[in-house]
């Protein structure tokens, strides 16, 4: 097993809590954050369930002490909240003390503001400050500026696997000695654009989502931001840093099957898991728990389940669950949310449950963990897949 890259801090805001502590509490109590929409006007309000963070934009602005004339999107504000918590936990006070990078995944970016003010730009000057938020990188810039990070700052957008790729890139940069520490993760606010987009694909459930269930009806869209801090061994040793866990394996592969759908044999997912295990020098039997992508769409769970069966074997499947029934599918943030959950699992030695599961998928006969399970956990594998055939796997170790 390779030692991996040290994780020294984490932060999160999701529909099950505005801090790591609150998220942990909800996970342990098996309390989901799936509700009806409150903050967005849409004709689909009564036909979908979502993992929505209930604070309004105005409340977030107040919490962050922003000026009235700011141009931060919801995606940026959620990102700042989570990234700040991660830095605090990692006891980083002087952001410029080491070569510090910031890598953020997003798919929505500032779309929530664009869809709100698109029509007003030609009419009045009041909201033209939001025009800049049209490019997704602006959200990363907002967060970097708030944190005072001036050097290597970049944004990854591979749809729903964005944050996994951000974590992977950060780990590779530290390993290669290009950075001393890096804040990695992702953020996506809820938007009418994504609600309608997923609605046209007919993969939004009108009930609480049921990952890996035979009768699953689709996903619940969610919103969240989550970041983790990765630091070099030298910093950890010199500053006597507390290590929460390690990112030990990572891989990215492409399904090369369809722009949005996954192949029935889960080729991309299979390749990502296989390569990540190789990077971590871990055999499939050593995996204690799989935090699955498990969006609860008919296509994903079938494809992912098939790929997992190919990797682990039907009879030797490790304990697995999808936590999407807690948070909804938080798109570009999902892998970072699940990275935080995986680290919590390692720390607490608890597998968080796959809520709402009743009947195994007939062709797979895989049963996820449906209640909190106390178990010694050393190795956790986490999957994230996205449009464009993007499949990524991360491996976290104690």
């Amino acid at each position, binding site marked *: 097993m390779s030692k991996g890259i040290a994780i020294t801090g984490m932060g999160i805001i999701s529909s099950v809590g505005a801090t790591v502590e609150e998220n942990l509490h909800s996970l342990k109590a098996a309390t989901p954050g799936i509700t009806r929409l409150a903050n967005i006007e849409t004709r*689909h309000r009564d036909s979908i369930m979502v993992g929505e963070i209930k604070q309004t934009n105005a409340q977030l602005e107040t919490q962050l002490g922003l000026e009235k004339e700011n141009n931060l999107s919801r995606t940026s504000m959620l990102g700042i909240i989570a990234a700040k918590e991660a830095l605090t936990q990692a006891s980083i006070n002087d952001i410029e003390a080491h070569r510090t990078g910031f890598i953020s995944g997003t798919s929505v970016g500032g779309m929530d503001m*664009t869809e709100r003010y698109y029509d007003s730009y030609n009419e009045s000057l009041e909201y033209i400050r939001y025009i800049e938020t049209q490019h997704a990188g602006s959200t990363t810039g907002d967060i970097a500026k708030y944190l005072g990070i001036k050097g290597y700052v970049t944004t990854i957008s591979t749809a729903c696997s964005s944050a996994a790729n951000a974590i992977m890139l950060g780990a590779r940069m530290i390993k290669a000695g290009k950075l001393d520490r890096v804040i990695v993760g992702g953020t996506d606010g809820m938007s009418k654009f994504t609600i309608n987009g997923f609605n046209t694909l007919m993969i939004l459930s009108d009930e609480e989502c049921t990952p890996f269930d035979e009768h699953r009806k689709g996903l619940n869209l969610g919103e969240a931001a989550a970041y983790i801090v990765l630091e070099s061994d030298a910093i950890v040793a010199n500053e006597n840093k507390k290590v929460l866990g390690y990112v030990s394996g990572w891989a990215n592969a492409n399904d090369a099957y369809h*722009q949005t759908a996954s192949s029935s044999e889960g080729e991309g997912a299979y390749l990502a898991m296989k390569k990540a295990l190789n990077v971590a020098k871990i055999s499939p039997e050593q995996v204690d728990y799989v935090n699955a992508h498990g969006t609860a769409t008919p296509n994903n769970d079938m494809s992912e389940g098939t790929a997992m069966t190919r990797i682990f074997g039907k009879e030797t499947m490790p304990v697995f669950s999808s936590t999407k029934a807690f948070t909804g599918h938080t798109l570009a943030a999902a892998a970072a949310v699940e990275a935080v959950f995986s680290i919590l699992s390692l720390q607490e030695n608890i597998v968080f449950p796959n809520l709402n599961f009743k009947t195994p998928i007939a062709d797979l006969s895989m049963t996820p963990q449906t209640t909190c399970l106390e178990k010694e956990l050393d190795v956790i594998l986490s999957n994230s897949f996205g449009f464009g055939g993007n499949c990524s796997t991360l491996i976290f170790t104690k």
Partner: protein
Amino acid sequence: MNKCYINGVASITAQPTTNGKFLEDIISYNDIIFKADNPNYKDFIKPSAMRRMSKSVKMGVTASKMAMEQARLEMPDAIITGTGMGCRQDSEKFLEKILYDDEQFLTPTLFIQSTHNTVGGQIALGLQCKGYNLTYVQSSASFESSLIDAQLMLTEDSNKKIVVGGIDEIAKTSSKFHILNGELKQQPIPNLELLQSKTTGTLLSEGATFMVLDGEKSTKNIAEIVDIEMIYTASIEETKKNIEDFIARQGLKIQDIDAVILGNNGDRQFDTYYQSLQTSIFTNTQQLYYKHLIGDYHVASAFGYWLTCNIFKHNNVPSIVKMNNLEVDEHKNILLYNQYRGENHSIALVRKC
């Protein structure tokens, strides 16, 4: 450290840059926003596939094929793309339907093609490439983010062959918003007189630049990307120091740099970043620019690599890209520097092979 060689490069821009000539025919525009000069996409894409493709996908797929042909590469190990705005035409159309049709009568196609990684995904799908696939959206450092990833990958494994590209397209309505917020000129100016402009803002265009990168030394090598650095924010003074430090780290002195390619875009407010270098550390260095030809957009800086490779190949610098009168017998080291509105700075050193 392992090397990072360029084995092929192709660029679709507002100029005829895919005709095999080195900037011999120049198109002049008199618009704030001008479109790419389309190559014959049918030579590269089947008509059945092309019908569903947006401009970004067409440009990206074509430029990637051109670069791969040049590098005689059939299947890459990785596809890494950068884009500032992604598929903004389809995003805009989908958004307008949401807003103006009250979220009704929507079809999935526009949404499916609206994600930033559409081009990278489509190239992978076309090639059946199951390797590493990533898309960066870091404004004017989007392409450079891809390069840094590729360079890192070659450090990990020098056997990799990597397709790297940058794509951005113009959209009907949302591109014009940048006139309203002052990122663009308020009135049309002749593109070829960009540097004479006394106003703020720049000119917007679109394009796709792709390269094939390889860690192995071979006769295919055109140039070597020696190093590349991204700096999110820096003042003019810090920038000068950043560039001096960068050059020193390569074991070089300023006089070892045969030419510097700068991202001057005619914005009076922010071209000061370049001018302060032109009148200080680079006064005795050949100074080149290109945004008067191809406009500015988030991945315009990728064109600097096309320009560099062609200078090496042709052993000649077209006078239209020169900002000063210094002549160079043979170019070996070319430095590239770009920024946009004081953010997303990138510095790179490219060396002739």
